Every structure is written in C-alpha cells, then in structure tokens.
C-alpha cells in the first residue's frame, strides 16, 4: 500500500485532527494554547465568583443573626491576618503546616490513593517529634532537625500501616486512614496523661499536672527571622515552600512522578508498563503521611502554639490541609495560594473570635468558601457531560412529508 492512501485513511479515521498541526515543537503556540481559557473555563470562573458572593452573603446573614456586625467582622479578619506585619506573621505561621499537608495529599491523590487521615498523621508526627525532643539529650540545632525527622517518620509509619492493611487484608484506604485518626487522638491523649511517658512534670506542692507534655527545649524549636513588630518568618515556612516546590517538580518532571501519574490515571495500564503498583502506591501513601507528620512537627516546634504536645495540637490542620489540596485539585503549585487563603482565614478567625464572635461561625464561613471554590468545576463538568449525552428533546410538529426512502 502506498503512503498516500495510508494518509487518506488516517484522515478519515480522525477528521477533526489537523495534520498540519502535527509539528508541535512550536513552544509559543503551545504556551498560548495552555493560556487560552475554554468556554467551560470562563463558566467555572464566573460561577465561582457568584458562589463566593453568595457564601459571603450567607456568612454576613449568620453573623447578623448572632448579633454581630458583618463589616466589623470583616475588619477583624483583616486586622488579624493582613493589615500589618504582625498579622502577616501569624498568617504565614498558619500557612506552613497547611501547605505541608496539602503537598503530601497531592502526592497520594496523584497516585490514586486517597489518604484522608492527615489529621491523625499530624498528631502522630507531633507525638514522635515531642518524644525525641524531650527524651534525647542532644544540644544545639541538631535537636530541631531530629524532631522534624522523627515527626516525618512517625507520620509515614502511621500512613504506612494503612498501606500494609490494604496490601495484606485489602482494607479500604480512605476508611483505614480515617479510622486511624481516631486511634491517634486516643493514643496521644493517653501518652500526655501518663506521667511515665510524656505528661508534664507536676508543678508546685499540689502535684497537679494537666494532660500536656513539657515544652520542647529551646534547641528543638524552629528558628524565626525578624522581630516583632516587623515581619517574622519561621523556618517551617521555608521548609514547606521548598518541599512543595520539590513535590511539584517531582510530580511533573521526574520518572517517578510519571509512573505515579500513570498509576493514578490507570492502574491497569501502569501494571502493564511494568510499574510495581502495590509497592509504589504504598510508598506514595507513606510519603503523604510523612508530609502530614512533618506538619505536626512544625506545629510543635514553631511559635504557633505552646510548644507542648497535647491532643488538640493538630487543631484541624490535617482536615484543612486536605481541603487545600481539594480546592487546588491536587496541584502543588495551586496549593500555595490556597494554603495562604486558608492561613488568612485561620489567623483572621482567631482574631475574630477574640472580638467575641463564636469560633464555630468562623468555621462555617470557611466551609462555605470551600464549597464555593470546589463546587463550580464539578458542577460544570457534570452539566456539560449531561448535555453532551442527552440532547434537547425535539418538540417539533409533525414535519411535512419528506421524500421517502424506497420502501
């Protein structure tokens, strides 16, 4: 068969494809194609704006109904998070652990493994970090490094248990990671309530001790640059940003990331191409646990709290980090601004609750915003797909008799 007839056939096979466009070395055109926002893209942006406005309206109504002032609340959020250097410091302090959790979630989700137990992995990470920081007599900044390494290992181990349960007993991963969270809460609670393990040393003559650990020694804490009232940056933020950038590069550019994406999109095809699917997905889950554990270590070792381990130390950072990844649709690069937004809400929310607005309202506002950001792409996808498969029903009057096929 000659080449020309073959080309013809190929053309009939794909009439939409333009052969002339096959030369795709043209970087400029490719970049432009990426930037061009499709119709569904505009729809998504538009719907998001509308839903954010609705979420804002609902939040205002809620604050009004509890006797607060919407404008005052907005101002409080602004003051607490972005109005000055101190606000920004708090915001960024909150952003770091969220970003870490989100980056780890991106890795697991890309591999097609749905880790939703970050909250527990954060707790276990903090616990492992506290254990090392309080028990090892290491001097100098090496201790801080050891605290973080222990935290990451703790988180990896906790998530790794779920991977093993899946491997050997076929236990559903979302279910096991979720349930392991509740176990983690109880475990940490028990440890900080047992004087022989991690509970603080009894104070004064009464001999009373709360269910918290001793504070981490100064050597085990993360350094901060800058002095109040100017901008303060904690080492945790640098770690989070660097690891997120590394994650983005590994996922999009490396051989490892290629295999991970292939596996997430089609495990069967990946297996076909020689990927050790069981091993690789277990590793991805453990790494996402390590990121969450590291976030726990950062929570423990940065000036965001009291540097003491307690069961409340995770403070929903695991759940919020999961939401960050959800809103960013598992793209680490997008997770950076989203984590920042959540950091603003956390910092501002803390400030807001100090002005008398109940904290649960802050949570409600946050949830409404998440819905506003997550829903549009899913909704528009669903509507377009539905429209594609079911056309509009023809309500036509009986057509004038058309020439009939020879029957």
């Amino acid at each position, binding site marked *: *068969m000659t080449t020309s007839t*073959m*080309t*013809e*056939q*190929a*053309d*009939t*096979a*794909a009439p*939409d*494809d*333009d*052969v002339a*466009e*096959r*030369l*795709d*070395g043209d970087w400029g055109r*490719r970049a432009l*194609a990426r930037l061009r926002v499709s119709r569904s893209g505009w729809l998504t942006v538009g719907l998001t704006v509308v839903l954010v406005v609705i979420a804002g309206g609902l939040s205002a109504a809620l604050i009004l109904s509890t006797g607060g002032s919407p404008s005052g609340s907005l101002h409080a959020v602004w003051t607490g998070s972005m109005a000055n250097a101190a606000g920004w410091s708090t915001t960024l302090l909150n952003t770091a652990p969220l970003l870490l959790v989100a980056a780890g979630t991106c890795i697991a989700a890309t591999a097609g493994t749905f880790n939703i137990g970050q909250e527990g992995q954060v707790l276990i990470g903090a616990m492992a970090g506290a254990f090392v920081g309080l028990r090892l007599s290491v001097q100098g900044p090496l201790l801080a490094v050891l605290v973080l390494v222990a935290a990451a290992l703790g988180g990896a181990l906790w998530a790794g248990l779920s991977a093993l349960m899946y491997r050997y007993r076929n236990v559903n991963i979302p279910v096991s990671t979720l349930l392991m969270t509740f176990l983690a809460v109880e475990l940490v609670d028990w440890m900080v309530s047992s004087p022989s393990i991690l509970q603080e040393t009894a104070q004064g003559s009464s001999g009373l001790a709360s269910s918290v650990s001793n504070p981490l020694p100064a050597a085990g804490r993360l350094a901060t640059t800058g002095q109040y009232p100017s901008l303060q940056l904690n080492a945790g933020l640098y770690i989070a940003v660097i690891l997120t950038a590394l994650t983005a590069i590994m996922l999009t*550019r*490396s*051989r*490892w990331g*290629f*295999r991970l*994406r*292939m596996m997430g*999109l*089609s495990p*069967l*095809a*990946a*297996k*076909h*191409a*020689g*990927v*050790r699917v069981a091993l690789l997905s277990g590793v991805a889950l453990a790494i996402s646990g390590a990121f969450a554990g590291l976030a726990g270590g950062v929570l423990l070792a940065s000036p965001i709290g009291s540097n003491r381990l307690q069961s409340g130390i995770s403070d929903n950072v695991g759940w919020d980090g999961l939401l960050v990844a959800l809103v960013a649709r598992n793209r680490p690069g997008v997770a950076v601004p989203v984590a920042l937004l959540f950091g603003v809400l956390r910092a501002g929310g803390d400030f807001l609750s100090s002005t008398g607005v109940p904290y649960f309202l802050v949570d409600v506002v946050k949830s409404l915003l998440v819905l506003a950001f997550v829903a549009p792409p899913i909704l528009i996808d669903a509507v377009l797909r539905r429209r*594609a*498969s*079911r*056309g*509009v*029903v*023809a309500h*036509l009057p*009986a*057509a004038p*008799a*058309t020439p*009939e*096929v*020879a*029957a």
Partner: protein
Amino acid sequence: MVPTTEQVHALQLRGITKSYGSVTACDAVDLAVEYGEIHGLLGENGAGKSTLMKVLLGLVHRDSGTITVRGEDVHLADPQEAASLGIGMVHQHFSLIGELSVWENVALGDKGRIDKAAVRAEIKDVSARYGLPIDPDARVDRLSAGERQRVEVIKCLRRDPKILILDEPTSVLTQAESEELFAVLRRAVRDEGRAVILISHKLAEISAATDKVTVLRRGQVAFHARTADTTAQELAKQMVGRDVSLRADAAALGLLPVENTSDADDAAPDERPAAVLEVRALTVEVGGVRRLDGLDLRVGAGEIVALYGVEGNGQATLGDVFSGLIAPTSGTVQIGGQRVEPTKPGALSDAGLGIVPEDRHQSGVVLDMSVAENLAMKSLGTVSGRMFVSRRTMYANARRLAAEFNIVASSMDTPVRRLSGGNQQRVVLARELSGKPKILIAAQPTHGLDVGAIEDMYTRLRKVAAEGVGVLLISTELEEVMALASWISVISDGRVTGSMPVAEATPERLGMLVGGEAV
C-alpha cells in the same frame, strides 16, 4: 397523523438528526420497518447505527425528525416509553448478572411481587415456542456465551415486543449458534408478524438473514434495497463508500470467500521457524473456575499464528497472562528459549514481548495522558536521565514514531482520549514495537475499528512478521484469521483443540474445533 401509504409501517423514522458537539452522528436518517420482516442495518463502526438505536430506545433524544410507531407520532422521552410501545432490544454486550439464575435474570426489572413459578413457566413457554432450550434454574455464570445470548433473547421476547432490535448479536456466537439465532428470528417474524431490526457490520449475515437492508455511512443513509435485489459486493461498496477490491478490505468486511490462499503455501508445516514464544500446559484457575486448561502454543520467528475461537473461551485470560496481570496456576511461558515469570513486573517486556491488549482503553493506553507520554511509558529509561524525564527526547521520540506509524493527532500533547480508535491502536502498536520485541501479541487488534484502520492494522502486522517478529493474533473473526495467519490454533474452553497450517484449514474443520470437538 394519517399514514399515506396503504400499509401502516411498524416503525417509521423521518429525518432523524442527532449531533454531539460538532460531530453529527445521525444526519437526516429515514428508515421504515414493516411487520413480518427482518430489516438489516449495516454500517461500519461509527456510522451512526448505535446512536440511531439509542434514539429509538429513548436513551438519547433526537435533535430533530419524527418517529411514528404503527402510524402514530411518538415522543420517546425515556426507555420506559419505548418499552410501552413494544420496542425491545437485545444489546451487544450482555446485561446479565452472573451470580443470579436464569429465571432471576429474566425477572429482573419486573414490577410488583415476583412469582417464581409463573416466571419459570413463561421461560419454558418461550423457549419451547422458539426452540431456545434453557434451564431456568441454571446460574448464568455457568452458561456458555451462546446460552447467555439465548437468555438475553428470552428476556426480550417474554415482554412480547412488537419491534425487536438486535445489536451485533453474533459476535459471541459460533457459526452454528448464529444460524440457530437467525432461525428463531425468522420464526418471530413469519409466524407472529413481529418486526426485527438486525444491526451488524458483517455482510455475510446481513445477506443471509434479512429481507431488507439499509446501509448507513457517516450518519447518513447511503443505500436501501431488498436484500434479494442486491449483492454483497454492492453492499460492501455502499458501506465503505468506494469499490472494495483489496483482499484485506474484503477480509475486514467478512466478505472473503473463506478458502485456502496462496500466501499460506510458503509455510510448509514441517519446517516451521525457531520458536520465539512457547507456551506449555498453561493452566489458570481464578476463584475455582478453570479459565485455561493445559494450553499449548508455539509461535516461530516471522510467522503469524492465529489463536482462533469464539469469545469467552479463555482468550481474555491468556491476554492477562501475557500482560503480567494473572499468575499461571501451572505451566510455562518461554520467550526466545528463556523461561519467563509473567507476573514479575517488567519481565515479559524485558524478555522481548510486546502486546496490543484487547481492552486498549483499560490497559493499552492511559486516556488522559498525552500521545508523547503514552508512547514513552514502557521505555521511560530511553527518554530520561537518572531522575528526570527529558521532554525534548520524549517529544522527538514521539514525533518519530508518529511519523513512522502514521499517528494523526493535533499535537503530541493531545490526550489520547481525543484520538480516533484507529489512531489509539496505532499508538499502542508503535509503543510496543519501539521496544524491538521478539514476539508481538495482538489481541483482537481490530475490534471497534473502521475498515480503513483495520486494513492499516493488517498491513502493519504483515510487515512486523516480515521483519522477523513472531506475531500471535488472538482473534474471533474467521476472515481475519484466514487472511493473516500462516498457522491456526483453535481455542475452546481454555484448551487448544486443534492446530494446523492455514492451507489445511477449512471452515467446517475450524467450526468443529471451535465447538470443542477434536478432529
């Protein structure tokens, strides 16, 4: 509306148009079906047959056009309305639940209380009336493909449809089973005055079984005639839109007179080339069911060996073994004289095995990855350094393969999902051959492709073999097997029931082997 012709059509479609985005699947299609006749609907894949039937069943809404059933305008908003009008369909892919018994499957979808005795009696009645013997209490997953087809037909006939639609009903049937089915359809139209629409892309069965035939090409009615007044050649020409003269064409259409062909003669049976693939006593059990039962196969360098048989006789399992997805219970696989452990990741492709898998959407390609990525996924090492994938090398490699294999895509960045079936299949073939395999497994490589793409695939497989690669063609199409292979092995019930050079193969002999009778 009063019908203008003296006879009221059982079903009349006028000007049916349905578009999906920029693609017009059906373009002003007219079709008239009478009671007491079998109406063939012929067309290539993608000609619009399925869309038209989905419109008829109320699964898809037409953009324009009118449908009348027994002279009355109908709306067809949903499948329930279609059912109430007496339109019933036997789908191409079985919609049966394996864990349930025959009568339970038949009763599925009934409203109200289910009366087991009544359903069983009805099944016995229908099966006696049409000559479709079946045990109502048998579990469906224990039945053969032909028996399952029978259950589907009974399920449909029990609801007493006035208009019966069958979509590619013979793809899982042996020759004898197909003839049996056509006899049942003949009874349904002649004795009971039903109307039957038979959808097929096989010319031979349209010619044999129908009274009238309508040919669809690219969404339009290309031809309409009484079957008796036309010829298979004419139908083939109308279906493809050009004269059909090439042998490969004819085979692709199921037109080829199945007889011994000259190019088979050069492979004398006693001097076969050195084996590149040797499978010995391969047995696979899955969940206590024996899928492969001591299967033996041998493929020599440069020859095309066909494994021919009716769907569901272990071919899919064999494909899974060659894909490294299932571990054999016993038996060995040797590639190039070396024994290979199929489930060890990468072992098969390292040993020199390339595979075009049967379910290309599931395991052949990753639909949401780009053409370049799909072409690189089995040889990542050659397009990357220690850590990172070199995009430049990956794209250069992709462009080279795309040119060589004639893959048409708007760019190498295009997700494979947006490619036509033929182009997707060429992506798989290009990738597998770029690894320089010793043996290429092609499992149903032409399923779902149009004639042009099928022809192209045939040419490429012949070329591959001419270059010295052994090719194992797993196929259910007799014409395809006869046109391509030099050696034929027949699979039935997980065993090879017979093996012969194509020169010794006759349809009768193959038919008996397919039915499980050793000759």
